[in-house]
């Protein structure tokens, strides 16, 4: 059990699971999307306040495992205040690390590096990416940027996406 503790359940991951950041709802989201994992029923909804190309504010809601909740929590911290292109680039680096296409040392992941251990557990990669799929799909509603890529990545990782129009 020590290996999984060290690689997967680092203190920072468990801390985010226990107290997820930016959890809840925005008063008036401009964009939102939901990701679900049909094998376990996990469901993460992401709400965005986009201003131009910038993620002015972000919240998420739903339920998932420790990996899913921590990954989504850290994701919201990382993309809040960033522009869309930076969020997409970060998602691509994060996904590439988890799928072994990029080494953790070469990826500009910041705190998200604490989830790099997930790459040793292929069955858990979809847990770590669920909130990101929702983010990418919410962003995809913003013009044509990134839409197809997000949907294909979701299908590949075994998650499904449902989107709802912003009110």
């Amino acid at each position, binding site marked *: 059990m*020590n290996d999984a*503790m060290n690689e997967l*359940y680092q203190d920072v991951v468990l801390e985010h699971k226990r107290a997820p950041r930016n959890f809840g709802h925005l008063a008036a989201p401009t964009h939102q999307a939901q990701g679900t994992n049909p094998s376990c029923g*996990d469901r993460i909804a992401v709400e965005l306040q986009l201003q131009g190309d910038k993620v002015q504010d972000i919240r998420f809601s739903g339920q998932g495992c420790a990996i899913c909740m921590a990954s989504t929590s850290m994701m919201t911290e990382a993309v809040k205040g960033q522009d869309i292109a930076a969020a997409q680039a970060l998602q691509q680096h994060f996904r590439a690390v988890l799928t072994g296409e990029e080494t953790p040392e070469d990826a500009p992941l910041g705190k998200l590096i604490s989830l790099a251990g997930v790459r040793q557990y292929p069955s858990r990669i979809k847990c770590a990416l669920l909130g990101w799929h929702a983010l990418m799909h919410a962003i995809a509603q913003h013009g044509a940027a990134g839409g197809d890529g997000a949907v294909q990545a979701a299908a590949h990782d075994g998650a499904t996406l449902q989107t709802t129009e912003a009110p």
Partner: protein
Amino acid sequence: MEALRADFPILTQSINGHPLAYLDNAATTQVPRQVLEAMREFEECERANIHRGVHSLSQRATDAYDAARATLKAFIGATGEHELIFTSGTTEALNTVAQGLWAAGPAEAWLRAGDRIIVSGLEHHANLVPWQNAARMSGAELVILTPDAEGRLHEAGLATLLAQGGARVFAVTACANATGERPPYEALLTLAKQAGALTVLDAAQVAGHAIPNMAALDCDFLAFSGHKMHGPMGTGALVGRREALEQLYPLRLGGDMVEDVSYERAIHAGLPMRLEGGTPNVAGAVGLAAAARFIDGTGRAPIDAHLHALREQAAAGLASLPGVRVLSRASSAAALVSFTCEGVHPHDIGTLLDQAGIAVRTGYHCAQPLLDHLGVGPTTRASFALYNTADEVERLIAATARALELLR
């Protein structure tokens, strides 16, 4: 126990530095040497296509296939009024029934517009989704016999549904794979039969230790899988009363299921070949029969008693952990224990148990509607087979306790 475990070479390995405790038997059981040897013997000495050749090997393969059918019919308690159809497993068997009951078309099929199909709310997707489709295709109405808050089915609930009339099919499981609930299926089948419905029993979850006796049940169709009774994967059977099987329109049309064919039309062969179109998995059938002999050789009653003891030990130990809820706690006939842990997700528990060499299943167990109905969401499920030990159950309880400590 040591001698019995020695028949399963896969159990001797280590996983993540610990001896493997394989507790995912409700998903798939392991295969003993006896089954592997029977299949190898067939492939090395008898392999040929059946029913087609006049040469010796073809005759021996045909004999092996027929003998496997006879062995399995005896295993399930089939009488002269029953027939056994080989399938790829429970899912194919249940689809063969559900689709076969409407595929003959509105003029001849058993299911028609306005009929009612009653399915228990304990079912996994393979005994629900085919009926959803059958209802859609035939115009029949799908009705769910919902369990109570504890996940139990009641005869009175079925009687109420049957009293509304029009029930043509009733489908139920012998044991819910998501909770371990063992419904009173004998009484439920009898009630449905008396109301004129065709009755369907999914026996996949009990085939390895408590297979029902077909002769003693008001059961028209019974399905089970080879891979959940120590047989090969991709094998299984549909057992049915002959007149019920005759109601099924064949879904696999082609070789070996026809009696006479012209360019314009085909006359279907009789049972069982009518429902076994194409070259069957003969080695699989031979292996499945060997698995049935292995179970009977070990003894069904001792296996059943052993599994119930392991389940009770696991259920009691897990329920004593803080925040742990054992589903269907009172279901003493179950061979599996399904549980939730307050504030901790099953996937995280499953990963940490795997690190301790313990294989369990986590998630919805292909029974999302039931777990949604019970309001519990995904669960962790440990399931037992004849080779599991009390020591493995203790490891499960201890490792779960450690996982909860870490994750909370």
